[in-house]
């Protein structure tokens, strides 16, 4: 039948159905305001490989140096560190003359030293570009120092280094001279900590993936509170792998199996989430790391898409 000759009653049915659908979508939106939470976030940049540097290969850690306004990225399988400007334009590449082996995490202290976890060497390497020195961090004074398997890193305002010991499931703290200070751990953890960050007030935030818990410690390592659990609900974690804290104290947790970033306030109350599984820009495929700079830009290492996506709240 020709569209123009459609009887009136059929047109009324079509219009009514459309209105009902809109109403239904509205009700759904009220009940599950997911898209609203997603809509608050804007993708402000994406770091890919290109013809000049070749494709990224399983990037892992990322760090933004506020002083130099530079992004440092550990391009793990390519055994190199990459640096980008504040608008994510490529600047330089560093591989310590081919000596870097599987760099997985990176931070930069106020003395302009890059501190990098090298998985293959099972060590944390300090790259002092000004002093033209590269040397490993000495774990030997830490309890069971020979057993340490280093993971993610974080720095506090005094350049103290917080290092995840994957084998011991704890956080080892070193001062800015590399001297071991103390360990932070919990009792009865399943698998121990997977990631660590230090908030603006000096509180230490740690994530236990297998328990699905975020732990918050004070400067001295005293447990203040904990929250979170693994489960299927919206506010629960499936497989959280990395966390970050913004200047306002909001805690962002990357869930690798949900392919989302979940947001909690300073009391651990769920605030919302953004992104979802996928390949297109704005979506995530096995994200592995999160970092937030002072401009509130959120860097998510989108590992299985071999890229970094940078989000910002609208």
């Amino acid at each position, binding site marked *: 039948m020709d569209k123009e000759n459609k009887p009136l009653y059929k047109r009324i049915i079509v219009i009514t159905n459309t209105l009902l659908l809109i109403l239904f979508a509205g009700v759904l939106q009220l009940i599950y305001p997911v898209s609203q939470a997603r809509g608050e976030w804007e993708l402000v940049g994406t770091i890919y490989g290109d013809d000049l540097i070749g494709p990224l290969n*399983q990037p892992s850690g990322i760090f933004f140096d506020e002083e130099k306004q530079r992004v440092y990225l550990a391009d793990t399988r390519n055994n190199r560190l990459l640096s980008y400007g504040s608008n994510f334009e490529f600047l330089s590449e560093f591989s310590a003359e081919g000596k870097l082996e599987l760099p997985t995490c990176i931070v930069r202290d106020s003395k302009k030293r890059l501190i990098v976890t090298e998985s*293959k060497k*099972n060590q944390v390497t300090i790259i002092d570009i000004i002093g033209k020195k590269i040397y490993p961090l000495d774990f030997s004074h830490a309890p069971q120092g020979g*057993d340490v*398997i280093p993971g993610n890193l974080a720095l506090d305002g005094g350049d103290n280094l917080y290092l995840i010991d994957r084998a011991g*499931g704890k956080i080892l703290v070193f001062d800015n001279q590399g001297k071991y200070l103390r360990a932070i751990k919990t009792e009865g953890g399943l*698998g121990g900590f997977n990631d660590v960050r230090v908030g603006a007030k000096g509180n230490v935030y740690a994530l236990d993936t297998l328990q699905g818990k975020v732990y918050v410690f004070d400067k001295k390592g005293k447990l203040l509170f904990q929250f979170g659990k693994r489960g299927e609900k919206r506010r629960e974690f499936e497989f959280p792998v990395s966390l970050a804290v913004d200047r306002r104290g909001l805690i962002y947790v990357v869930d690798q199996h949900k392919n989302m970033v979940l947001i909690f306030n300073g009391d651990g109350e769920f605030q919302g989430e953004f992104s979802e599984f*996928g390949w297109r820009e704005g979506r995530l495929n096995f994200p592995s790391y999160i970092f937030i700079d002072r401009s509130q830009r959120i860097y998510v290492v989108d590992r299985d898409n071999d*890229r970094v996506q940078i989000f910002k709240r609208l």
Partner: protein
Amino acid sequence: MKIYRYYCIILLTMLMGGILVFPLEEVSSGEKVKGGQVCMECHPEVRKEVFSQNGHRPAERGNCVECHNPHTAKHDNLLSEIGGRLCYRCHKKEKKEFAREHVHLPVGKGECTKCHRPHSSINKSLLIENRNKICFSCHPQEKIFSRKNIHSPLKKGNCMKCHDPHASDGEFLLAKDGKKICISCHSVKDPNLVKSHNNYQLKGADCLGCHNPHSSNNKSLVREFFHKPFAAGKCNSCHLSSGIIKKGDKELCFSCHPEVKKEFQKVFSHIRGVKGNVCLECHNSHVSDEHALKKARDDRICFSCHSDTKKRVMGTSPEYKYKHPKFEEFKCTSCHQAHGSDYRLLLSSDENSSCGNCHEAQGKFTHPIGKESIDPRSKRGMTCITCHNPMGAIEEFALRFGRKKELCTQCHRHNM
């Protein structure tokens, strides 16, 4: 005399209460029986079955409409509800009891009739088969106890001596905690038992760590494969004379297995642990029935941490309708490296090579894949898992999208 009065009052109250709860008249000649009689006029086989065997109470009472709708129904056999939902309408207590961490698969799926008959049975609890045989209808004996020496309760088919057939708080549907179940029959104070364990403190020991509760080719049901120092009686290789494990935690294991240490020094290191020797998270240091002295079958070890993956993959979600056949074999390590890997998802090589190991034909003849075939969505080289989800998918061939159109239009939007 006063006390007799009280007894009389209590008895009368119970009698009245009983009549109210179980109205005799209704059972013998009430409407419901009439209803049942009507049904059984056409279904005499049900009447015969119900009254010649142990009958289900509603069926005995002729209360067919408790489960069936006599006129129309959405479900087969005019049932008013399907599976467990029908049973739980009356069996509310059981529903509560079954809400535990480990649930027998048919219970989880609401398939009560896998084990129970709905009208009657010659067996107790309306079981479809004798209590001593019923488990073997799904769990064949040759798989469970194929070895020479068999645990005596199992010989008699008394599986329920150790297992709860519905649900349990512990693994393997054990009726009690794994560390307590053995001592309910085997006293830890038995001098023979103590002597055979070199006077080792047995209280609180994990018996199942070393003994197979079903069968073994070894005496005393000790598991099949032995750690070499243990088999040689060289306890001091790992223990101090006090029995305590030598210092060094995982370094203790690496001192004899240095090649394994390198396996952890990868992009993705699977090392995890807070409880001392991390190797013991997955391996048994003395004996095991599994290759490499693994504590248990791959899936049991892996899912003990990857509980969300277990729920997704082993659950009934249609999103995981098509699963990789290796799941049926419980072989996670067919594709994933247990210690560490330089490749995504702890695969043993890159995605295409990993799949190509088994799928030889597809590895040679396929949609273009590799570094040169760029996925326009992620700007990354295409791999097998760009289109397939090897863990499971809603579409046939474990495809992420429908292969008639949606899969292709993900990338070829302008060609359509």
